[in-house]
Every structure is written in C-alpha cells, then in structure tokens.
C-alpha cells in the first residue's frame, strides 16, 4: 500500500516537473520562400529574452548587430570600399545646406509587418525614447523634428559631423505604435523641461526598461515571437509586408544558440551555414578539411601593447620604439589567432585598411613600419643610455633593468596569446618581463586606474572615421575617456614635436570635425605621423574575422575579391546586405 503511494507520488512529481518545462509553440508561414538560412549567436532564453528593443535582453542583445536588421531596418547600410551609404529603410538623406541640421526621408513604400506604413512619427518616436535613455546621438544633436510624413530633421548642437551622420543612418527604427504610451510620456517629460538628473527622468527610464511588448512589429522581412525562441535555436519567420519581403530568398532564419564551443560542432556537422564567432586556428583548419569555405573580413580592432607612461623606462621614447622593433608582428599575429589576425603594417594608429583611404600618400611614405630588427633596437637602446648587463638584461647607467609585469585578461584567449608571445619576444631581446593573467573585468579596471606596467587592450575600431579609430586607446585609456581620478596609460597629449607645440587631443577631434574631408585627411596624416614616432602604444596586430560559410547550404556568397568584404564584422556585415537584397539564396 505504502509502496504504491510512493510510486504515485514520484509519478506525480515527474509529471509536474515535465509540465513546467517550456510553453507550447506554434509555427506560421504562408507563401514564404522556401529555404532556411542558419546562423549562430548566443542569444538569451526567455524570461531574460524579451521583445523590448530599448532594453538589455531585447532585440539588440539577442539578435546582435548582424541579425537585427532582418527585423528592424535602419535607414542605410555603409559600404566601406566606396565610402557610401546605400538605402535600406531610408530613401534619401543629407546635411542641410547651412549645416545646421541633418535630414532623412523614409522610403514611402516601407510598411510594418502589421501592414501600417512606416512614417516620420516612428523615427521621431524612436529618438524620443532614445533621449530618455541617453543615446550617444544626443552628444551631437539637440532635437529631432518631423518635417513631413516621411522626412525628419536632426538639429546639431554646434557643427555638423560625419560621425553623427553615421549614428543617425545606422539607428534601428522602432514601431512607434508599439511604444505609444511610453513615447507620449517621454515627450511630455522632455517638453516639461526636465533634465536627466531629475527623478522623474530616471523613473521613466526604469519604466521603459521594464516594458515588455507582447509582440514584435517588424520593418524587416522577418519577424518572430517569444514562442520561436527555443533552447537550441530561435527562428525568424518571413513576413510579406517589408520593403525586402520580395527580394529575400529564405523563408526562415534559424539562429542556433551558443558560444564558440557549442557552435563549432554545428558548423562541422553542416547545421550552421554561417557563423561570426571567433574560431581558433585549429578549428579553422578543421572547417577547411570539412570543405567549408572561410570568408575573411576585418574585425575592426586588434590587440595593442599598452605602456603605463609613469613607469620608467616606458616613458622613454626610444625604449618604446625598441619594443616595437623587437616584437615580430607576423609571428605575434599568427599565434594570436592563426589566419584570424594580420600583422600591423603602417603602425599609424589607424587600421591598415583605412590608411590608403584616409592618409595622404606622402604621409604613408614617411611612416616608419618598425619591421622586426633587433640591431636597430639595440642601437636605439644604446642611444637612450642602456647597455646589456651581465645577465644579458638591458639596464641603464644606474643598473636599473628594463623590467615590468605584463598584465593580461586571462579569459580572452586571443589577447592572452598575443600577450604571452609579446612578452616572450621582449624577454628574448633582453627585457625582463613577467606575465600575469587576471580576470578581464579586473584587467579593464586596472588599465583605467593606471594600475599596471604593461598590459593589453584593443586599438582602432569598427568605425570608418579616423577620429574614432585614433580614440582607442589613445583617448579611451587616457585623460579624455576616463573618469576623475583615473590615470590610464597617462601619456601626455600636449608636448613639443618636431619643434612645434602639439595638442594631440585637439588634433584627433579635428580629424572628425566639420564636413571638409580633405582637411580631415590632412589632420589625420599629422596625427598618424606623431603616433608613429612617439609609439605611445604598440599596435601588435589587427584581428580579422574568419567566418565559416557553408556553400553546400547557401549559394551566392561574395567572391574573395568582392569589395563588400572590406566591410568589417558587425552592423556593416556583408550578409545583412546580401541576404536582404537576395544575393544569398539556398544552394541548388
């Protein structure tokens, strides 16, 4: 008797547990093109996963900049090779003649997935909420106004800016009706003259964050509901109302969940057609062995060896230059991530792909490329008063050796590998470097606080503009980018160079000011020469994204020389444009 009771209890418990798992899901599709495009990204599961585009855990978090455009279109897509924007949601755009504002016009044919048209109200509504949340566009613009049903004006705070243009054109536009209440409240608050310091402001921000829309209203050709989010993959379903609904060739986009470890077997077994993860060299090789094509595109940044300039002898220019000379960057790049990293060529502080576009030819010719040369490094060290001591370590006249602790983020295996190799090579030359891996959060904090001797963090960025690329790490980990009391690398930005007083901060800002591209190029050239000579950091290599693309599943991938492959990974990723415009299609 008792035994049966136990059995019953166990059974009931088992059913209860099973019953609690995952809600029912439904699938809908009508007249959709056949074919499934499967990618991979480590999205969140509900309940963390929700449909609020403005909060963490929403579309931005779960679809990444690569997949989000399939659901929410921005105005335009940027082509790096030709430096031009091509329309997505927008029809036309431009600066006002007097430069006081920027304007965009939504394509009048654009419709939301519920059939309603996309209008200027959606754009203005998006920015109204963005203002409450402190979006970075509002560093440049001060108000966003509707001009007519499709046109919106963005008024600049002072001068017009190409950086602002990019921010505006790349912003994902959200369906205003879906957020009507919040937009109305936000407008009311802004009209009342409140500032971000007010309690009401942060209360509204809280409310925006905690809002959970029941459905997603998409401007892109795909849409999904929370029921489509599974443990192993999530599915974006084709919808007929978008501008691109007719051009896309896939009825479904399947996004497999997982980081590199979980994704690799999926790519190998042919489940995933394309993935943007950072795959290590051994895996890249395995992909090729399995007949999977690897497409190489820039990643937009790379690891840089950071000096803390308060620490002797890293405050001596010759020592820094010698450091740059004794690290074989080809080796360092290869060990950082195999084919996934290229050695830095120009050493200008600007990503090598941007150098021909942004620097004048005479500047490029003047750049010292710091090719691996220990003899030159020895000369430099001697000129700075250093000699090798009995142990073969470089030391100054007082016997102070060139020694340091090299801190690196242990979890980032590419940065860790770059660090270990750089330290090895420096030791080979006769420096005394010890390495120390710390949790990445700790490393980031220590760099900001200047609590390191040598370390590693990124340089350059996924933005096409020199101002943005020079910013990292020269400003990011130096005065401008830091909070009060933080030291960072502490590289002085005002000094005498070639007989003239320079203010590097001002010069970097000037490379992005106004609309005169030629003036900007000239200024960028000056900055590049200064960085090239001063070597405030050593750009070790530049990461490229080596992405597996399974041509047995998807046809139409760009050829290796296709200019669209100059676009870096991220929001300018080639699959966004090629998939929306129908270049990519199911194989066979």
């Amino acid at each position: 008797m008792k035994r049966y009771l136990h059995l019953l209890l166990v059974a009931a418990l088992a059913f209860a547990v099973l019953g609690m798992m995952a809600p029912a899901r439904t699938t809908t599709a009508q007249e959709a093109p056949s074919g499934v495009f499967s990618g991979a990204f480590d999205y969140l599961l509900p309940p963390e996963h929700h449909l609020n585009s403005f909060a963490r855990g929403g579309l931005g978090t779960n679809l990444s900049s690569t997949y989000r455009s399939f659901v929410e279109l921005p105005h335009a897509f940027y082509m790096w090779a030709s430096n031009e924007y091509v329309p997505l949601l927008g029809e036309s755009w431009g600066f006002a003649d007097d430069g006081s504002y920027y304007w965009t016009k939504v394509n009048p044919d654009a419709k939301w997935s519920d059939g309603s048209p996309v209008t200027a109200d959606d754009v203005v509504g998006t920015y109204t909420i963005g203002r409450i949340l402190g979006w970075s566009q509002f560093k440049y613009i001060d108000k966003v106004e509707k001009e007519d049903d499709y046109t919106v004006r963005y008024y600049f705070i002072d001068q017009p800016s190409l950086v602002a243009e990019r921010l505006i054109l790349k912003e994902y536009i959200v369906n205003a009706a879906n957020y009507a209440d919040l937009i109305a409240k936000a407008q009311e608050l802004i009209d009342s003259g409140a500032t971000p310091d007010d309690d009401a402001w942060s209360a509204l921000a809280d409310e925006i964050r905690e809002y959970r829309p029941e459905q997603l209203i998409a401007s892109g050709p795909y849409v999904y509901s929370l029921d489509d989010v599974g443990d192993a993959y999530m599915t974006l379903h084709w919808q007929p109302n978008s501008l691109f609904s007719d051009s896309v060739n896939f009825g479904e986009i399947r996004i497999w969940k997982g980081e590199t470890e979980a994704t690799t077997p999926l790519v190998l077994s042919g489940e995933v057609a394309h993935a943007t993860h950072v795959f290590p060299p051994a895996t890249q090789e395995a992909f090729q062995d399995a007949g999977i094509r690897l497409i190489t595109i820039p990643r937009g940044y790379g690891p840089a060896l950071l000096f803390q300039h308060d620490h002797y002898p890293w405050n001596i220019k010759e020592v820094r230059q010698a450091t740059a000379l004794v690290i074989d960057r080809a080796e360092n790049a290869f060990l950082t991530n195999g084919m996934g990293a290229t050695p830095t060529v120009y050493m200008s502080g600007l990503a090598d792909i941007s150098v021909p576009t942004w620097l004048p030819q005479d500047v490029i010719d003047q750049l010292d490329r710091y090719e691996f040369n220990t003899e030159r490094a020895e000369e430099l060290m001697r000129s700075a008063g250093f000699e090798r001591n009995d142990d073969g370590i470089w030391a100054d006249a007082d016997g102070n050796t060139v020694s340091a602790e090299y801190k690196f983020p242990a979890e980032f295996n590419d940065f860790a590998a770059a660090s270990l190799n750089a330290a090895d090579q420096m030791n080979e030359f006769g420096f005394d470097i010890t390495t120390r891996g710390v949790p990445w959060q700790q490393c980031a904090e220590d760099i900001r606080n200047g609590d390191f001797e040598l370390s590693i963090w990124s340089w350059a960025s996924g933005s096409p503009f020199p101002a943005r690329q020079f910013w990292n790490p020269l400003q990011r980990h130096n005065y401008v980018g830091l909070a009060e009391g933080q030291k960072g690398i502490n590289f002085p930005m005002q000094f005498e160079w070639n007989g003239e007083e320079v203010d590097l901060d001002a010069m970097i800002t000037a490379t992005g000011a106004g609309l005169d591209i030629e003036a900007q190029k000239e200024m960028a050239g000056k900055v590049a020469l200064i960085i090239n000579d001063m070597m405030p950091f050593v750009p070790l290599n530049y990461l490229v994204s080596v992405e597996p693309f399974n041509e047995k599943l998807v046809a139409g991938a760009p050829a290796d020389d296709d200019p669209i492959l100059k676009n870096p990974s991220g929001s300018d990723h080639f699959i966004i444009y090629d998939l929306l415009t129908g270049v990519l299609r199911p194989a066979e």
Partner: protein
Amino acid sequence: MWRSYAFRVTVQGLLTLWAVTTFTFVMIRKMPGNPVEVVIDQLIDRQQLSYEEARQQAAGLFDFDPGQPLIEQYADYMNKLLHGDMGKSISSAGTPVANQIKRYLPWTLFSVGSGLIISFTLGVLLGMAMAYWRGSVFDNVLTAAASLMYGIPDFIIALLLLLVAGVQLKLFSMEDVLGGVGQDVHAGLNLPYLKSVVQHAALPVITYVWGTVGGWILTMKSSTISTLGEDYIMVAKARGLPERRILTAYVGRNAMLPLVTRLAISIGFVVGGSVIIEFIFQYPGLGRQLAMAIGTRDYTTMQGIFLVIASAVVFSNILADLLFGMLDPRVRVGGEE
C-alpha cells in the same frame, strides 16, 4: 520531543541559510567589476563613448546603483527576501529572479536527477556484484574501469561525446541533442514531447553518470564486503538460506545503509547542476544560468541561485539525518518504542 527536534533542525537550517546568504552576498560584491562596469566596457567598445558617458548610459540600463553602501544594499535585499521576493535580475532589468529560477530549475532537476538515479542504481548493482565475486576478472576489470572513469574529468567526456559520437560518427543530429527540448513539439503529456525531452537530456545524463558512477561502485563494493564479513551473514549461510535471499534481504539492505545517506546528500547538489556540462550541451539548466550571471555580474540572479542551491543542500542534509535514523535500527533504539 519530536516537535522540539523538528524545531531545532529548522532553526539550525535557517541559521545556516542566513549565514550562507550573507556570506555570498558579500563575496559576490567583492568580485572585480560590477554589472555596470561590465556593460560600460561593452558600450565603450561598441559606441566609443567616454567613460562618463558610458557610465551614464549604462546606469540607465540597470536597476542597480553601484554607489550605494553595501550595508544598505544588504538591508534592502534581506528585507525583500523576508517578504519572499528574490528581487529582479540586474542585467535583464524587469525580469524577476523567481521567474528565472522557475524557468531553469526543472531542467536541471530532471537531467541531474535522472542521472543521479541511474548512477546510483547502476553503482549499487555493480558494486554488489563485484563484492560478491571479488577477485574475479569481472571485479578487477570493473574496479579499474571505475577508477579510470573517476579519473577523467566529466567535461572532457562531454566534449568527446559531442565530437566523436555527433560530428564524426553522426550517431545523432545536433538538433536532437542540444537544448532542453525540440522546437516543434508541444509541451505537455504527449509522447513526442516526452521523447524529445528524454532525447535532449541523454547526453548530459550520460556525462553525469560517467562522472559519478565510479564513486558509487567503489563505495558499494567496500560496504558490501564489510557487510559480508558480519556474523549474521555467516549465520544466515549456516542456516542454509538460499544465496539470492541472503544477497537481497541481508547483504544488500545493510550494505546500502551508508550509501543512502550519501544519496540524500547528493540530492541537495542536484539543484546546482553542472555548469560546464550544461554549457557544452546548451542545456537550459540552473548551472549554466549561474555561470552566465557570474559573467555579467548579475548579483541578484547569482544570489537567488545560490540561495536555491543552499536551501536544497540544507534540506537534503536534514533528510539524510532522518533517513539514517529510520533505516538504521541501532540509531532507533530507545526512540518511540
């Protein structure tokens, strides 16, 4: 008497829970980087803001003020906890921690729980058989195997399973094993759903069993051997009882005694799941969620999961005490009789 005992145990359990909660509360907040800092770094990378700008923007994303004194945060948290509210996730503002736990706990319970049951049953049966035929080839081979299994970390096994069985031998398709359940089945008591659940749990369960069965086998074997040496077994043999009956009624029962307590304690650790295994198999369990929360420094989520795990351990410890008292007559002497 009974009531005062229950009272004492409950108070002890609650005290332990309080201590663990407080301890983890402080520990977690002493980790380098807080949730805001983590996002600030991401924002700086992505949007190239200055630290101050990024901080402002990040602060807007969170339901959390890193500047608040620790003691106030603690008072706040404990106050909410006493009202049965575990708070909301920090990194996914607006998501109650309770919902997260409700979402992930059943999967862990199911996979690790069935793993534990299988592992225990297998261990007890094999261990007994080995003790009975000790010294035989069967015993030696299994002992070596058990020690070896014991020696290889389970996460390695997980990776090997996925790679060798999945990718190389194509014994299963990834769609059928990753995650908790297939996308196209309806939740509920229908066959396809149950089948899918079992299918998806198979790999984590195999890995779990691999990692633990060796321990059960070895413990059961030594326990059985010592039981076989007891006088009453001799007596039973002398009485001419059939071997099978001796094995089941006398040996098995008594040899299992020490294992049952261990089993009860293991039940407590079921809840924590296995971080690494769940990561590798994309299994939507509590362990994986905990690891993710640690990565984003989601204090409240971490705190909530720690609390659930600790409660389970406390509860299972009490269970072990009671079970031991019920099963071992020597402890029962002088009790209710």
